[in-house]
Each structure stands twice: as C-alpha cells, then as structure tokens.
C-alpha cells in the first residue's frame, strides 16, 4: 500500500517547529534544582514526537540525534540528573540543533554536521547510561530480507501447542484472530482441547479455558510464526516445533524427501503469492522520492492555521447572507412600492451581513502577538548571559491579535529594540547596585489594543538615554549647533536619525548595521509609528503603534477640486476653518498657521498635486491638521466628505509606489481614490519648497 506523504511531510515540519517552541519555552521556565514534572514531560514529549515523526520520513540523522536527547530527558524524568543551568543550556542547544537539522531537511539542504557531532558528544558525556552510536533499532525500519527463493519454496510442517492463560481475553486478544493469521501463512489444522473446562456452574464466561494444538504447513520461518504470537507471548505457553526437526535448518530443496515435494505441489496457490510479500515495502520508498520533487511547491505556499471556530463563524455568516439574498430576490421578483419597507430592511440586513463577513474574514488573518513574543525569553536568556547582566523578562498582552503580515514584519524591529534595551538600557548588576536599584533589571514587553490600533510597548528600568551623549552626537553630525536649545523629546528623536549611534564601539549586539532609523522605517512602512520616552536613571519606554490590519482602513474622504482623496482617520488630529489672521508666511516659502501654541506649516494639496479648479483662498476651504511620524501639518482641502471604511488596494501591483500616496481604493461610484500618506506628503512638501535656510525645529523637522 502506498500513501502520499507530501501533505503529512509539511505538517510534520510545522508540528516539529511548534514542538521545538514548546521545548524551548518549557526549558526556560525550568528552575534550577527543582523537579517540575509537567515541564519535563512537555520537553520529553516534544523531543519524542520529533523523533517519531522523523522516523516516518526516514530522517535517520534527526532520529539518532533526537534519540540521544530523548534518552537524556528520560533519565531526567527518572531523576538521574538534577536540573542545572548547564543542563538547561545543553538542552536549549539540543533544540537549536534539532531546529537546524529540521530546517535543512525541510529545504533539502545540508547542515553543519560538526555542530551536531559536538552537541551529540556533549549529550553522550552527560548521559548516565551510554547510548550506542548506532541508530536506535526501535526506530529504523528493519531491512527487508530478500528471501532466498529456494528456501521460500520449502514447505515445512510445524506443530504448535498454544495454551493461553485464562485471562487472555481481557487484553482484547482473541485466539481465533491468531489462527486466522496463521492460516494466511499456509494450511492449518486446528485441534481444540476442552479438558480444562470446569463444571458448568463454575464457568466464568470471561475466561478462556481452551488450549489448542495446531498443525501448520507453511514455507514461513519460525520467526514468522512467532511474530503472530508476539502480543500474547507472555500470556501463554507456546511451543513451536518443526516436524522432522532432525534435519538441519538450512536444508536445500533438492536434497529433500518425497513428502516435502508433494506438499509443494499441493500448496502452489499460496506459494505463488509469497514472492509478492516484499513488494509493497519497496513501493513505500516511492512516495518519499516524489515528496522531494513536490517539496518546493509545498514550502512556497504561505499558510495560516485557522481555528475551527473562526471558520464556523464564517460559514454561519455566509448562511445568513444567502438567506438575505433570497429574501431580496423575492422582493425584487414582484416589486411594488408598498414593499419599500421590506426592501429597506433587507438592505439593512445585507449591510450587517457584509460587515460581519468582512470583520470575520479579517479575523482569519489575525494572530496573537505571542507568536512574536515567544522568541524573547530565549533571546533575553542568551543575551543577558552573554552580557553578564541579570534581566527579568515580563510579557503581557500576548493574546493581543494583529494581522499576520504586520506580525511578521514587526519581528525584526522588535528584536532590535529588545537587543538595544539589554545592551544599552539595563546596566550591569554592580552599576545597578550602586544606583540602589535591584540587581535584576526588568524588561517588559506589553501589547494591547487601543482604538483601531495595536500598541506594543518595550519598557526597561535601565539607565535611560544619556542626553549629553546624544547631544554631542547631534552636534557632531551637524544636526544642531552646540548653542541650540532643544527639548529632551527633540533630543530623543535623534536616535531615529540615520547614522546615529552613541555606542563608542560597535558592539556585537546592536551594531549590526540596522539602526533605529531602519526600525522606524519598517514600522512606518506598516502604517505605524514609534515614539520613545526616557528618563535618565529610570529607564526608557518605546511605544509602537500599528494598524490592526493592512487591508482595511478607516478613512476620511476629502475633496480637492474634482478629485477625492482618502486620509487615514488615525492620522487626523482635527479639522478647522482657517482664520486669515493666524496665517503667517515663513521665509516667503512656507505658510505657517498658528494653532494655539503650535506653529503648523500649511500644505496646499492642490499645489502639491497640481490640481485645477480648486478653492485657492484659505478662508474658503478647510485645514485638516494631520500628524505623520510625529510631525504636524495642515493639509488644505476644499471640503470634507464622509468617513468610511475603505479597502486598501496597492498601486504597486500594476504601477509603482508614488510618493505621498500609500495606495488607492475604489469608491462606491466605482471611481478610484488615492489614499494619502501624511509622512510622505511632508517629505514631498519639503522637496517642493526647497527652503534655502534650515527651518526651526518643532515647526517642521525633516529627515
């Protein structure tokens, strides 16, 4: 029998990586010198499952390695080892090696065998009972012995005495089934011995009082016969003897007596079948080869695991949608004006269904942020060891869901921020003691929903930013003059500038060529923002705001001339009528609006987009105060239209990225409207005005 393993293969890798995650998090939860049975069992099971699965796909190297690990874990379960940091680190290393091997197998590439060997040696050194170098025989499929044709043809006569224990039926074994199996091997004669049956009144129907004597004519070997009794061997008396057993076991056919040759003839039908036996075993190789060929197609499809409840919800909603549709159909069939109320009801229902459907479909793409957070315990563990720092990592809000794409793209920036906090934020234990802070630093990763966005905060109780250093750097880079007085917040902003790094020497951890500017850019590309608050001596907090999803946006429609644009609602602070007295010109190039204590540059959208037939007098239109990347700008539009949820379509599919525009959407009229990107607009504005002098910070600060 052959089955297609391709599908299972993908599943196996997915599952194995999950198991490795479980293994890792359980290891990190283990406490030294305490025996937490549940955690240890979790770890054991994870390694065990990987070994079992790897066996199916004949990944023998993984099986061997996992087997060693499993043996150690088994010994730990039996309390032969105490939990020490060394042991935990070794097992974390084992997890890494397994991951490396699995990844390599998945992608059909080679891995660093030396690493495996080093870890393997380490494992063997620590093991209480030595494990043989060989692949454990329990996992390797026994080689198919190519049967010696001549021997197979020899039909022997076997005498089998089978006396099961009384209790045999209670394990679900039925002698009749065993005999059925024997019959498959050849001609079987059965004789029942009923001598042991007690008097009727004493009979317990649950017990087996019978014993059997069997004669089997077969070409099968003794071990073939024994295999049938494998499961009951300890619950019976079994005696298998060969008739004429005086002749040696390896007798060749040609030397045999007449009796045997006769039997060969009598049982030809069965014998013909025999050479087929090994055939299926050979065939099982095939799906695996095919699997390799299909693998690339498999690994390229990005998949998402969706809970059944989410799917069920969708099915329910679609069901309702169908009902609504048929209801509307009915109304439409013989419509007369008295049905108008019904029609309105139907349309309202349709709208509700559509909205629900949309919300639920969006939900499918949502994953809890724990997918991303889960890697941090390990990262923090490794880094703090490396840096000689003591850090307690606190995770909260792990169940906060966000879009899969956002989640994936946030992964690297988050790692960078955590590395930064450990490297630059949290101090060495002595320094902390001197500052009369607890020796163990605290790093808090928190996620929560706020309005239409997801907020992620990375908070440390470290040293905070060294404002003096930042200032010096900014002066050195020529961003400010040494006399310039700027606020602390403005100083903090500098860390997001390209080329900024206060580290005197590039450390192994943070100086990897990705700076905070890249972090900010990545976040901004996702339509999010990042800001930082830091107090010297008390710590820093990075706050990242991200849209829930990349596919839908709450938009404010605005009109400029004949064109309609969409502004993300999140970027709008307020809209107002312009009072001419508050408008000032700045160096002749930029108009500044004084809004309470703020000076806000005015960007006339019609100018930047070169539109005609628009309102040009400020007091006749509206000023939409929007914020992009921490900067405020007043967008001058003709009028505000409605607010609505819009589906984001990208321009890049068929065209390319356009500065100041983050995408497009299709309006109810079928026309296309561009979605404005406030940050991009500010940049565009800067390029267009090409102000010769440098503008005051706080008004507009350009990158």
């Amino acid at each position, binding site marked *: 029998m052959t089955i297609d393993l391709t599908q299972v293969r993908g599943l196996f890798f997915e599952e194995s990586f999950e198991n490795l995650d479980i293994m890792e998090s359980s290891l990190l939860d283990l406490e030294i010198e305490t025996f937490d049975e549940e955690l240890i069992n979790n770890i054991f099971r994870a390694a065990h499952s990987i070994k079992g699965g790897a066996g199916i796909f004949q990944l023998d190297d993984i099986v061997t390695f996992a087997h060693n690990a499993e043996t150690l874990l088994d010994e730990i379960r039996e309390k032969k080892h105490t939990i020490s940091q060394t042991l935990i680190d070794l097992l974390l290393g084992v997890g890494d090696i397994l991951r490396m091997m699995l990844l390599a197998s998945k992608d059909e590439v080679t891995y660093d065998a030396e690493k495996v060997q080093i870890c393997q040696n380490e494992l063997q050194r620590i093991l209480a009972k030595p494990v043989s170098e060989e692949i454990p025989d329990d996992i390797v499929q026994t080689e198919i012995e190519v049967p010696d044709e001549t021997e197979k043809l020899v039909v022997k006569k076997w005498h089998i005495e089978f006396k099961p224990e009384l209790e045999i039926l209670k394990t679900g074994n039925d002698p009749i089934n065993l005999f059925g199996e024997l019959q498959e091997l050849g001609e079987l004669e059965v004789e029942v011995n009923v001598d042991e049956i007690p008097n009727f009144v004493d009979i317990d129907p649950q017990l087996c009082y019978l014993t059997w004597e069997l004669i089997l004519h077969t070409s099968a070997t003794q071990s073939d016969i024994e295999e049938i009794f494998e499961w009951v061997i300890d619950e019976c008396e079994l005696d298998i003897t060969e008739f004429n057993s005086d002749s040696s076991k390896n007798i060749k056919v040609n030397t045999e007596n007449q009796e045997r040759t006769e039997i060969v003839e009598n049982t030809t039908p069965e014998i013909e079948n025999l050479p087929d036996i090994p055939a299926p075993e050979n065939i099982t190789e095939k799906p695996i080869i095919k699997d390799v060929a299909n693998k690339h197609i498999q690994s390229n499809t990005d998949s998402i695991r969706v809970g059944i409840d989410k799917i069920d919800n969708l099915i329910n909603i679609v069901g309702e949608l169908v009902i609504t549709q048929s209801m509307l159909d009915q109304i439409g069939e013989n419509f007369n004006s008295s049905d108008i109320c019904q029609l309105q009801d139907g349309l309202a229902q349709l709208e509700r269904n559509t909205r629900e459907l949309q919300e639920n479909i969006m939900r499918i793409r949502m994953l809890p942020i724990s997918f991303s957070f889960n890697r941090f315990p390990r990262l923090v563990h490794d880094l703090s060891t490396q840096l000689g720092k003591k850090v307690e990592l606190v995770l909260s809000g792990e169940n906060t869901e966000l879009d899969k794409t956002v989640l994936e793209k946030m992964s690297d920036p988050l790692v960078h921020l955590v590395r930064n906090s450990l490297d630059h934020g949290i101090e060495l234990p002595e320094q902390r003691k001197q500052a009369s802070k607890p020796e163990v630093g605290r790093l808090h990763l928190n996620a929560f929903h706020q309005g239409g966005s997801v907020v992620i905060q990375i908070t440390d109780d470290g040293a905070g930013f060294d404002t003096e250093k930042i200032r010096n750097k900014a002066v050195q880079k020529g961003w400010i003059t040494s006399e310039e007085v700027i606020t602390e917040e403005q100083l903090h902003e500098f860390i997001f500038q390209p080329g900024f790094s206060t580290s005197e020497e590039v450390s192994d951890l943070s100086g990897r060529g990705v700076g905070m500017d890249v972090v900010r850019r990545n976040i901004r590309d996702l339509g999010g923002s990042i800001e930082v608050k830091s107090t010297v001596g008390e710590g820093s907090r990075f706050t990242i705001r991200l849209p829930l999803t990349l596919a839908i946006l709450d938009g404010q429609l605005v009109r400029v001339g004949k064109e309609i644009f969409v502004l993300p609602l999140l970027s709008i602070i307020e809209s107002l009528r312009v009072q001419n007295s508050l408008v000032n010109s700045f160096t002749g190039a930029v108009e500044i609006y004084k809004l309470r204590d703020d000076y806000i540059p005015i960007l006339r959208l019609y100018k930047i987009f070169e539109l005609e037939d628009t309102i040009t007098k400020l007091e006749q239109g509206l000023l939409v105060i929007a914020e992009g990347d921490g900067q405020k700008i007043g967008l001058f539009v003709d009028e505000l239209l409605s607010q609505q949820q819009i589906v984001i379509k990208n*321009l890049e599919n068929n065209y390319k990225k356009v500065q100041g525009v983050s995408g497009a959407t299709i309006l109810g009229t079928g026309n296309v409207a561009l979605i404005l990107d406030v940050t991009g607009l500010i940049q565009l504005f800067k390029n267009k005005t090409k102000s010769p002098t440098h503008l005051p910070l706080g008004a507009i600060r350009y990158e």
Partner: protein
Amino acid sequence: MNSDINGDTANKYLTFILATEEYAIDILRVQEIKGWSKVTQIPNTPSYICGVINLRGTIVPIVDLRLRFNLDFQTYGSMTVVVVVNVISSNNKERIMGVVVDGVSDVYDVTETEIKPPPDFGSVISTEFVKGLTTVSDKMVIVLDIDKLLNSDELAIIDGLS
C-alpha cells in the same frame, strides 16, 4: 497562428492608429479594448501617465501613447480607445496597463521574417521600443515592443521598492 508557405509561423497583431501612423502589438498581450472612463490622476507623474482606473476591482494605470511619443494632445472623449495590455517587466512580474490610442484599426497575421529592423530615424518614437517594421497591404506598420515601451523611464519597476 497560421503557417505560410515558408513554414514560418505567423503571429496575430492588433494595430491601432496614432496621429497618421499605424502601430502593431502582439494580440496575445491584449486583454481587452474599452472606451474612455474617468481616470484618477496620480500626482507628480509625467503627463503621459493619465492616472489610474478601476478595472473590476484592480487599479490599472493608463498611459497616453500620444503624449508618450510627444505627439499633440488630443482631448479624451467618447471616441477615445483604451487598449488594456499585459506587460511583463524585467523581473518577470506581470502588470496590467491601459494605453490610450486614437483608434483600433485591424488584426493582421505577420510572420517573424516579415518584420524588418527599423532604421534609426523616420519615426516619432525612439527605436528602442520598436521591434521592427512591416508592410501590410502597402501600408507600413510599426511593430511595438510593448514590454520595453511600458517598462521604460517612469514606468520602470524599481526593484526593492515595495
């Protein structure tokens, strides 16, 4: 596709008119031909990019070939024709674009051997976008390389920018 006497396979080409000249493009690249519909302008783009339209849920950019070839602008109206084509860019990405032409003319069978390399002058457009010249019923037809044309300059895909 038909085979002529030489055994050379003929491809079908759609031709269209721009000012006084007739241009041909591989018909297999033509997705549909439609009338003019309102475009949404894209800011800060060259004048030959009219903007984008909604083609059954897809945002499709529209290029005015007259302007692309520096011919006089002709106002759009009910007679304006948009040819929607599939363009394959250098990185093998397929894009859908619309081109505005004066009118669609005909469909011809042209074999590869009938397409002669263009001289370096005599056309309003750079020969870079021209696959060659051919003659159909005594008329000269300019065969365009649509991929080169719609992947040049402002229309080029900048790798890594997404």
